């Protein structure tokens, strides 16, 4: 057995959809709503619900701007969000380590 703490895993990132948004923004720096929606293959409704949850948790920052007369909503990962993603990956790696050594977690 390992001392792996299941409760330490970030529940917000256990959803594949939210994990995909956070991971995409980690690479993209900043992206508009439709880019996030297309990259994560979600519908408008799903994407906005998950983005709102991430925004409420302080993982994602949103800003609005106008391109010509067209409004554009831009999203970027915050430092909190980046740290949450790195912590999540670190937890997954801890989970993998015993398997690599042939142990049972």
């Amino acid at each position, binding site marked *: 057995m390992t001392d792996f703490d299941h409760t330490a895993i970030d529940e917000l990132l256990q959803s*594949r959809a939210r*994990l*995909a948004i956070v*991971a*995409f*923004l*980690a*690479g*993209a*720096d*900043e*992206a*508009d709503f*439709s*880019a996030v929606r*297309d*990259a*994560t293959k979600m519908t408008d409704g799903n994407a906005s619900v998950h983005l709102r949850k991430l925004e409420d948790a302080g993982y994602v920052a949103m800003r609005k*701007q106008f391109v010509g007369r067209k409004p554009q909503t831009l999203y970027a990962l915050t430092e909190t969000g980046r740290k949450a*993603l790195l912590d*999540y*990956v670190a937890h*997954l*790696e801890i*989970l*993998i380590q015993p*398997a690599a050594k042939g142990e049972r*977690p």
Partner: protein
Amino acid sequence: MTDARDDIAFIRQTVEEGRNFAFGRSPDILVWGIALAIGFFANYAAIMHPFGFSIGWIWLVTLALPWLFTMRRTVFRKPGTPLRPGVHAMAAVWIGAGIFLTTLTIAADWSDAFREGWMNSVVAGAFGFCFFASAALLKLGWMRVVAVGWWLGEIALFAIRHRPEACLLSSVLMLVLLAGPGLYILLRGARTAP
């Protein structure tokens, strides 16, 4: 256990898509690749079948147009939208290399040093450096392969520096190793961006 591995692979793939999106918003590399390929091919054609006018004019156009294209971002950037650090570092590497190559081209043309044949090799080496730095900044492994391609091209260009085929090889390298990656990242960016 497999789930954790799958999750990590999924995260890596999605982060890479994000990086490609960030980099792929810019068609500058494609424009520079095509312009320089035209310039080098015109140079080769001028050596093989002289036009009757200076090749310098073609170089002026093939350098000035991509510079204007690159500078549009600075001219038209909205106030209050500073570049993020990663994008800023990338821009510094590429614009720095662009200034280096442009000033060296002008100096070499002015002092008639082109006939010594080392310029094509220097250009290839500089692009190898740019792709190597970009690979490190964006953590995109395939760009290292492009950098190695440029450095192999640099050696080949040096080996044939006194032959007109050096310009032809430079033109091919610009299309394959500059416009090619530019088109690739633009298409990948287009797949993730609207």
